[in-house]
């Protein structure tokens, strides 16, 4: 599961929808095995559009869960999408490596509201609930 996907996943328990703690899920860094996958090519425009959309505070939380505390506290902003300078490109390249190339191949994540644990196996997150919670 690619890092960026963590910005879209919430707890499947319906009752948690009314809490603010069902997103992002909390990742157990000691149990998450990371891999770099370079099959998707770097595309600055794609990255800028992704950044427009993501919730940066959740990116920071998940990165910290996984042991990366070196991200800027505020979401990088690009004034003109069509004329990106070298510094912009360097930032976008780093974010490409983090958001798209970094994937969690095995791991665990937990809802901060109900505490339910979900697993990632063979890069596939399993968000199904056991019958008593569904």
């Amino acid at each position, binding site marked *: *599961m690619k890092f960026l996907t963590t910005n879209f996943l*919430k707890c499947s328990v319906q009752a948690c929808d009314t809490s603010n703690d069902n997103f992002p899920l909390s990742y157990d860094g000691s149990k998450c095995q990371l891999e770099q996958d370079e099959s998707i090519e770097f595309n600055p425009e794609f990255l800028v559009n*992704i950044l*427009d959309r993501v919730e940066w505070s959740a990116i920071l939380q998940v990165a910290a869960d996984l042991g990366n505390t070196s991200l800027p506290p505020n979401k990088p902003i690009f004034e003109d999408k069509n004329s990106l300078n070298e510094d912009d490109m360097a930032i976008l390249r780093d974010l490409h490596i983090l958001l798209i190339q970094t994937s969690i191949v095995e791991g665990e994540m937990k809802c901060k509201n109900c505490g339910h644990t979900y697993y990632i196996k063979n890069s596939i997150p399993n968000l199904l609930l056991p019958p008593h919670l569904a």
Partner: protein
Amino acid sequence: MLPTPYVKCDYEKVYEPAEDSFLLLDSLEKDQLYLSERFNNTLSVVCELGPGSGIITTFMMQNTMPTNNSIYFALDINPWALEATTDTAIRNSCEKSYLETIQSNLTSSIRNNEIDILVFNPPYVPAETIPDIPMDKNDIDTWLDLALVGGEDGMKITQLVLDQLDSILSINGVAYILFCARNKPENIVKLMKNQWSIELVEHRKAGWEVLSVYRFSRKSL
């Protein structure tokens, strides 16, 4: 006409592409320009529910629908379908697209109002009951049944999605949903048309079945 992805799966474990799958491909092809204009210059989050073999998501990736700024989520309860979807994507050289396969019961695992394009070929065959989700990955007959049967009027699962559509779709989001005549889609249109703009994109007679694909979007203010 856009080429159909090459699919080779174990159809004892996942739903084999059939007329309904192809009608959805045709609907998306017909709306290709509409979608590329609607989602121009922005990130698009595409989400297919119940991808089965993965033919539809692969078709969208192959043809960069809606744009080349898209990420694709394929959500299925059937673990075999998730593996098949990845296989089909690779078989059709889509490894450079952003595809995530997620084991999930409908969209319960995805944040509200984040999906820009929802595609759903639901289990629509009327049946008295729908089996429970198996605990065992090897209970393949049940996984396959879940891909087909839709309870009363074949609408039980589709109705769950329609009831939540407002919290599933992004502000600008659209949903493509397949129906058979026994689902009585014209009744659904009647019930939902005050709140939603609903278009019949394609319909076709397939054997003794009449299939249709409707597009749902919010009414513009």
